[in-house]
């Protein structure tokens, strides 16, 4: 449970980063002329769409991890429990990916930034502009769904984390926790429509980076550390190969 809390917190902190891109889009979504209630509904729908995409990606990543790791179909709880070889490799890969994303948050690895953020984002965002002004409740929902697919290092990091859980449910929960974490800031953005002070944004980005770095290190550790214990366990006999 505590792992999900960390993810939720990382999502919350990271969402100050999101204000750069998604926040701008949330602002552009604007207010509904039919009053405050309608505006809130509009932004709730937008965020629901976004959350759905994240959850879907999480579930998919988790199921993917499960398919390649545990043909037996057993799932393991997040951050604990014994792991088999495939899962350990996946954990190490996912952890390294998360560490790379975290370093990018700290302004390192500028080359990576172009790869993660530049991949067709502007084209996609430009095509979506027509949705912002479209009337009705379906448009903000659709907009949120597409928004969720916009390239974003945060999403990549947590999708990697979700894959390392090697279970659809855990993957789904990971991304759900992350998505819910981004809820408040983006809901706020839509309502207030005013950018936060850059200093606060920077602090949020560093905080999110730290959280991801921590989670990444733990994930990598999860892949490496039990190795010794695992072998010892294997030597003592009884562990099915």
């Amino acid at each position: 449970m505590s792992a999900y809390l960390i993810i939720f917190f990382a999502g919350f902190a990271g969402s100050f980063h999101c204000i750069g891109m998604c926040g701008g889009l949330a602002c552009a979504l604007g207010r509904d002329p039919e009053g405050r209630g309608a505006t809130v509904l509009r932004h709730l729908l937008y965020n629901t769409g976004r959350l759905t995409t994240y959850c879907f990606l999480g579930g998919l990543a988790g199921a993917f991890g499960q398919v390649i790791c545990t043909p037996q179909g057993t799932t393991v709880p997040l951050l604990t429990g014994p792991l088999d070889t495939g899962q350990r490799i996946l954990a190490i890969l996912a952890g390294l990916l998360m560490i790379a994303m975290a370093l990018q948050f700290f302004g390192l690895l500028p080359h990576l930034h172009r790869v993660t953020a530049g991949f067709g984002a502007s084209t996609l965002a430009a095509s979506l502009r027509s949705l912002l002004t479209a009337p009705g409740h379906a448009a903000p929902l659709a907009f949120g769904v597409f928004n969720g697919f916009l390239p974003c290092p945060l999403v990549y990091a947590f999708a990697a984390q979700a894959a390392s859980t090697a279970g659809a449910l855990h993957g789904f929960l990971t991304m759900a926790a992350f998505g819910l974490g981004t809820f408040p800031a983006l809901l706020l953005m839509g309502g207030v429509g005013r950018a936060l002070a850059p200093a606060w944004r920077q602090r949020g980005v560093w905080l999110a980076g730290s959280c991801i770095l921590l989670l990444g290190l733990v994930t990598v550790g999860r892949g490496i550390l039990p190795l010794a214990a695992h072998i010892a366990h294997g030597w003592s006999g009884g562990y099915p190969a």
Partner: protein
Amino acid sequence: MTGQDHALCSHCLLPIGRRAMQRTVNGEACAFCCYGCCIAYQVKNGKNEEWEAAWLLVRLGVGGFLSMNIMLFSLLLYTDAFSGADAAMLPWIHLLLWLFATPAVIILGGPFLRETWLNGKEGRLTSSALIVLGVGAAYLYSAFAVIERGPNVYFDTASMVLMLFTVGYYLDAVARARAARDLQPLLAAESEWATVVDGNGEFRRPVREVGAGTLVRVRPGERIPVDGVVKEGESHTDEAVITGESRQIAKDVGSQVIAGSLNLDGPLLIESSGAANATRWAQICRSVRDALICRSPSQRLADSIVGVFVPIILMLGVGASVYWAQRLAFDRALLIGLAVLVVACPCAVGLAAPMATSLGIGRLARRGCLVRDPAALEALARMRLIAFDKSGTLTSGETRVVAIDTDGATADVVLAHAAGLERYSEHGLARAVVAAAAARGLEPMVSRDVRVVPGRGIRGNSDGQTVAAGSAILMRELGWPLASGLAERGRLREATGHSVIYVGWGEGVRAVLSLDDTPLPEARATVEALRRRKVLAILLTGDLPVAAQRIAAAVGIESDGIEAGLLPAAKRAALERRRRNYGMVAMVGDGLNDAPVLAGADVGIAVGSATDLAREAAAVVLPPGGLWMLPWVVDVARAVRATILTNLAWAFGYNLIAVGLAMAGVLLPVLAAAVMAGSSIVVVLNSLRLERLPEPVPSAAADSAPPPRSTAVPVNSETLQAG
């Protein structure tokens, strides 16, 4: 818009064939070759305020929202998240899935159903019918399962298949539009707008309404829409589309500009010199459009395969279901049939040729090389023998004085005497003599009583003595002695294929002028480059054998590849003979005199044709002075053919294996749909590799192997006086 405009897809500019989708976007009637192009075009070009473009995205977004929810719950179901204590929730989860799936199937499946219905009314089965059938079966089975409280539902399959197909088609269309981007300027001549300036101001008018004498303003970065003369402004233009050479040409007041060239850096005011639809650019555009609409032989084959593809897949799918139903549970058998239906991808087969052909034709047309139809491109890629005409193709086509042999008089005096007479003649050789004198800055001698002696030459009076220029017979008739050295030189020159003119005055023959066509500087490099590409060059000409041999030696054609003294019909027969050994043969001519031979070859190639392109007998037209591009054109044609072949191999290989796997029951329908969506993208990406072909290199072609230039008069006639 006319029916003609609709023959190409509004989005990707590929031919649409019979299965056009008609829509109105921004008030204009558009036609699309597939659903993907329809979406991509509206997303890209729909105005922001426009409800339709947004509505399409809203539908996709909501469809995505519903499908993702369905998929998420289904993933949890598949991974047994609802086993054990939560098993009681199963029927409710199924019901929830049904609730999500119904609008999703309606929203996402609508366009497929519509297409199936429209085609079905005309008695055609298209690939959308496979999707509708498969998805419909999965949905209906699952709905019954919910009512009957069955253990498994497949709403995820139904909605994800639709979602993947929609997204796959969309991505496909987006990638294909990159090919269209290159073709756009080549098709723009007819639909282009011009800024017309008159006394009352500036107006935007369709270019087809612009006539001669109209003033047209062209801003930097715009394409010049009409042929004309610059009246105001200075700029540089790039005429690559017309001449094939991409370089900046300075233009200022009084300069001629040609339609289709790009105005680079300054505003220009241009007075149109003719109707806009009669320019070479407009002709090029019409030719490119016609070529794109044409179907190549391999394309026709592919289309007929696609025609029987759908019914066969339908039978295979049903057959697989029936077969497996006797061995597995009914729902598993149904899924196997469904996987067969959605994994088969006729799109990849249908797309194998047109995309590569369009890219190739567009690529060539941007350098001014026009291809009349895709079949010519295929033939060009396969041919191993290329026959050249001599005059005007391998040579400049203009006769020039290449040597002057005298018995003591200086070349200048000889030329001045000869030019004094020949300027009164219209004969081709006479013009060459006058031009040679002018090139050396000589004043022709003043001559009186000039008389043409038909079939012999010309004579007159100058400085009180008779001057004559013409054949040896003329000199003999005049009774003038011919020095034996000079006579020997003359015979030698004639023996090597030159035309000779004897010049005499003061009761004696003083000199022999040798005239000939000179090979083009790039001819040798071109023949050499073709040989490196395993294409044999031969020479078919109506000229004398000696002349043919000299030119052939100069450009590097081997002596057994020369046939001279041929009438047009004989040229055609000679080509026919060679074809027996080489299969496909190409013929290069100037397009004026060789029309029958060009038409008789598998590929007729005209260089720098001045005639109306529409009446051109050649299938490939190179720009004036564009012989050096021939090896590059062959390269492009071969790359296009290789791409088509790999595309077809992939498309058929993919379908065989994928359908086989699906029938064996090892492919889940959702995975099958994803694989199918990817398969046509592979074809598109493979075709897009054609964009990376190198550009033709003019300097290398001319410089790498400097041809032995014939002795041109201004340079070295002095050295020839010795004779």
